[in-house]
């Protein structure tokens, strides 16, 4: 039934986003890129793809962070085009997608302000997709109380703060716990919104968001081994929309080592495969990007565990790419917009990895990225 009226408001943008998706790098193009000797070669190869001449005006030598920023800007331009042409409920859906980046930006600003950093520097380091109008107001606050009230009033994230974080928490609790609390509230809210849309959107988005919830639960558990995070505190950070809810979440809350995490994931067939050690599935090391759950409280200690955690992270990325590609198999739904942004981000991470390997001449590890197609 969604096919009858979806095209009234969403047909054009769905065509646009599928066009964007057709421009994602293929395996051939990745092969060409990995064979580049220098960054200039890399730039020339990229100009033949959908990226075009986005690096044309950069003075040599080009740093990898510039490449990453410019590529992200391409994605931001595409996203803003979609957003400016969207009407309800697609505009609300796209807004929900930006909340994830807003959470990162708000946490960045809060941390920076509490430590007395420069406003402009903080604003420059914010992710462009998560910028909202009243962000500079956050930098003006001087103490925690003011900051909390500013956040409650000025930001679109106010409902997530109101329900789960109090003014006292902003001071005492570690900033990562706040980030994860906000993200849990955001995921659950996003999932509820998608369910209210109904149809294939609800189905596909629930699948993707449930995996995201389980991934965060597993990451929080693993990263909290050997830290001061108590099990009750840990359990409060797990989102409730995942496939591991409720038994898996309870088991993860009680887990003390990787073996118990593996047992908690036994009921779900796809997650079982993540913990198989030494199999050929997945690539050894991926680009971490700005994963906030990576270092929850202190470091992980043993480097062996670090290698295993990175491997697991890679397998999460592979599965996420798989789920996002599946979203394109159905027409007349909104999940294609979400999936496209995630796939593009993964592509930018891969590009940055390849550029890094070229720049540092570490060609043996240049194939350790996750291709999208």
């Amino acid at each position, binding site marked *: 039934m969604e*096919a*009858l009226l979806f*095209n*009234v408001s969403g*047909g*054009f*943008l*769905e*065509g*646009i986003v*599928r*066009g*964007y998706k*057709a*421009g994602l790098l293929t395996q051939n193009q990745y092969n060409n890129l990995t064979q580049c000797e220098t960054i200039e070669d890399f730039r020339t190869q990229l100009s033949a793809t959908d990226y075009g001449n986005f690096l044309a005006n950069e003075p040599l030598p080009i740093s990898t962070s510039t490449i990453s920023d410019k590529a992200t800007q391409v994605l931001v331009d595409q996203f803003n085009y979609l957003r400016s042409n969207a009407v309800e409920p697609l505009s609300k859906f796209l807004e929900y997608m930006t909340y994830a980046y807003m959470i990162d930006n708000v946490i960045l600003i809060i941390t920076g302000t509490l430590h007395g950093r420069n406003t402009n520097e903080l604003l420059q380091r914010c992710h462009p997709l998560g910028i909202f109008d009243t962000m500079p107001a956050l930098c003006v606050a001087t103490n925690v109380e003011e900051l909390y009230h500013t956040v409650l009033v000025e930001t679109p994230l106010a409902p997530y703060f109101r329900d789960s974080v109090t003014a006292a928490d902003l001071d005492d609790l570690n900033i990562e716990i706040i980030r994860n609390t906000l993200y849990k509230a955001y995921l659950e809210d996003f999932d509820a919104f998608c369910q209210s849309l109904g149809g294939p959107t609800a189905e596909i988005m629930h699948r993707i968001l449930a995996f995201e919830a389980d991934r965060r639960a597993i990451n929080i558990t693993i990263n909290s081994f050997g830290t001061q995070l108590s099990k009750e505190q840990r359990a409060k950070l797990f989102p409730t929309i995942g496939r591991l809810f409720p038994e898996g979440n309870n088991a993860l809350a009680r887990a003390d080592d990787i073996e118990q995490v593996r047992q908690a994931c036994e009921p779900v067939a796809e997650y079982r495969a993540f913990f198989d050690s030494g199999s050929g599935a997945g690539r050894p090391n991926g680009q971490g990007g700005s994963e906030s759950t990576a270092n929850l409280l202190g470091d992980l200690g043993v480097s062996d565990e670090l290698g295993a955690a990175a491997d697991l992270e890679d397998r999460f990325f592979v599965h996420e790419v798989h789920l996002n590609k599946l979203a394109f198999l159905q*027409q007349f739904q909104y999940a294609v917009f979400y999936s496209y942004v995630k796939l593009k981000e993964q592509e930018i991470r891969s590009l940055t990895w390849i550029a890094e390997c070229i720049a540092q001449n570490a060609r043996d590890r240049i194939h350790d990225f996750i291709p999208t197609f």
Partner: protein
Amino acid sequence: MGLYSSYYTYGLPTFLAVVTALYLLFTGSGEAFNVGQFLEETSPYAWAATGIGLCIGLSVLGAGWGIFITGASILGGGVRAPRIRTKNLIRCVSLQPSAFPTSPCSSIIFCEVVAIYGVIIGIVYSARMSFVSPTLIYTRENYFTGYALFWGGLTVGACNLLCGVSVGIAGSTAALADAADPDLFVKILIVEVFGSIMGLFGLIVGLLMISQASEFTAAVAPAVVSPFVH
């Protein structure tokens, strides 16, 4: 949508119908609800004209619905892959010599053909409507013509509505698939051909339904015995 919107949509008309029925019943005018009298009294013109109106109206609704569904996707897909425009709008360029010859039609044309079927039926049905004075119109043959035109028109209209929508949705998928991979277009076009055959079925059945219906003819005045004949 409100929580109780389904209560309003189903409850209110039911309530009104029940109140009206009970009112008629309790005021002793239950006989006023007389289906047979209604069918006998209503002019065959009313039935015929309503049928033709529904025929063309629903056909155009189906065609328009299909066209906008396909058109929006062609617009979106054509931004990155401009080559899909001609193929999906006017004619399909590649006629495979090996496969069975596909007619040079595109999604939009298939949708529009549905409206043309409605027009054809409208014209054919209108030929059955001729002028007869109101006192002489109530004959058995005219009743039959009136009912046949109404239900024939409704049949063709409904068929074309559903056919147009189905071809439109398939056309939208064809446009986006073509934008991704040019080989897919002809294959999905075959799906659309089968969809548009549905409209043809409606046309055939509509023609069959009125094949026995003559045009409106005046009643022959009954023979009167002449008072001068003994």
